[in-house]
């Protein structure tokens, strides 16, 4: 029984840190989200206001609806582009013996190893009014474009930068998966006269399904939480055009000091991330049971 003693001692430090980092903040914020705490209204008494903050999120489209729509556009276009580009490149890399494969792989690691704040700042230099891209457009006789000044363009730039940084991640995952596919399956299909695109569509992709779902899930979660890159690239602007829910929650709580509303906002994000993970995990478990 000596072995059972001391297990509390093992778990305790981690639980203390968990309490500091997750449990205490969770309950603290949960309580705040039902209060009317707003640092902009000095001397205002903090009282419980029920679901008032949550209701407020939906009174105006600008508060929650718009950032949510922007987040959805951002997430869907980023991960779709990342997936398509990555799939094509991964198929290319894994299908043939190309010289310099390892060098290419090493190059791919650099974008995702780069600190997101730097990626954002670099994007800002490249696309600013007097930035490199406009400089070269000018040489081609094209007038400078207000990349980060127009709402649509700015969102596109944010997506481009995100795709630049994280497509390599997808490529490496998919390539690892493609290399694990048994050669016999592909050869058998070849013998039966399957065309290369048929091999990809009917053999390789189905075998990769689990890995693809996992990769998409990881990217989706990351894109919803993304803060540093967008903050340093556009700051959420112009006029909130690139403000995802994650940026909006920060702005409301720490720029406008509306703590109650800000925390309620965070809990909406939490609910959304939980729903999305349930969705993905469902796909995964269904697949494990062979129900595809």
């Amino acid at each position, binding site marked *: 029984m*000596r*072995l*059972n003693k001391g*297990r509390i001692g*093992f*778990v305790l430090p*981690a*639980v203390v*840190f968990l309490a*500091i*980092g*997750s*449990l*205490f*903040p969770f309950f603290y*914020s949960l309580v705040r989200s039902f209060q009317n705490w707003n640092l902009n209204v000095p001397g205002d008494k903090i009282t419980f206001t029920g679901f008032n903050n949550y209701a407020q999120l939906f009174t105006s489209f600008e508060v929650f609806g718009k950032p949510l729509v922007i987040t959805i556009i951002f997430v869907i276009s980023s991960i779709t582009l990342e997936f398509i580009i990555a799939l094509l490149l991964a198929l290319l*890399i894994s299908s043939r013996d190309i010289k*310099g494969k390892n*060098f*290419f*792989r*090493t*190059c791919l*690691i*650099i974008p*995702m*190893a780069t*600190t997101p*704040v*730097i990626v954002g700042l*670099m994007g*800002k230099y*490249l696309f600013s009014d*007097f930035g*490199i891209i406009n400089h070269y457009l000018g040489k081609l006789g094209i007038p400078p474009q207000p990349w980060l000044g127009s709402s649509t363009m700015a969102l596109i730039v944010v997506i481009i930068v995100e795709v*630049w940084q994280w497509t*390599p*991640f997808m490529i*490496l995952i998919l390539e690892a998966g493609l290399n694990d596919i048994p050669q016999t399956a592909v050869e058998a299909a070849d013998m039966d006269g399957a065309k290369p695109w048929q091999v990809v569509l009917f053999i390789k992709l189905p075998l990769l399904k689990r890995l693809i779902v*996992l*990769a998409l*899930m*990881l990217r989706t979660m990351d894109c*919803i*939480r993304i*803060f540093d890159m967008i903050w*340093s690239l556009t700051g959420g602007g112009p006029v909130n055009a690139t403000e995802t829910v*994650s940026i909006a*929650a*920060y702005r409301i*709580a*720490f720029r406008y000091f509306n*703590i109650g509303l*800000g*925390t309620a906002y*965070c809990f909406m*994000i*939490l609910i959304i991330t939980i729903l999305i993970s349930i969705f*993905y*995990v469902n796909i995964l478990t269904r697949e494990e049971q062979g129900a595809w």
Partner: protein
Amino acid sequence: MIVLAFMFLVPIYGSIVTSFKSIEEILTEGFWSLPNHFSFESYVEAWQLKNFGRYLLNSFIITIPSVIISILVASLAAYPLSRIKFKGQNIIFFLFVAGLFLPPQINLLPLYKFINMIGLYDTYWALIIVHVAFGQPICVFILRNFFINIPFEIQEAAKMDGCSNFRIYSRIIMPLAKPVIAVLLIFQFTWVWNDFLWGMILTQGENARPVTVALFNLQGMYVVEWNIQTAGANITAIPTIVVFLLFQRYFIKGITLGAVKG
């Protein structure tokens, strides 16, 4: 292929050449040309005038203990959670997993208050505590899932020989877990080094401010000094890139390991 590799590298190339040029040369020659005179002036200026040396040191002082402590603490917890049956085990593990889902903004205000309350605002310890705390869910999760697959016979044999729990943990389990620990090292190092939000909120001035925040603040303070900005960015980016390249072979394994969460 070469074209595509090029596409991912163009911005990096640009930022490297730019950092070796003088501002005059950038304005006359543009960004992409190789510098006429290689000059390290931008680096010297970033290092001395903009105090990057200090901020870089700050980042290391924060990152290294954070990584070591979080993996150590998490592995201690993961051991009984996976190898010994006891009441409440599942609840504790569930709490760790739930921690994975919290959006970081939920923590901002409570932790800001907490750090101020214990008088650690603007110190290294503030950031170390916060990073260790945030590292727990993912580290405990991955380590526990790894430990649980180690055959129990090994443990039973050691028990027979009278090994204490701590000896089983330190002499048997941890050495076996080396590959997964390498993966966590990369994750945690990158995660802590790249942090920007917490560095911004928990520090002021140069006492404990990490280099990412310093770099962000560099813009706007001066008129666009591309060369110094890119020099600063390159300095900041090097450690994570080095860590990634060193541990490249563990990386893919790591992604799929991390991917099992959810």
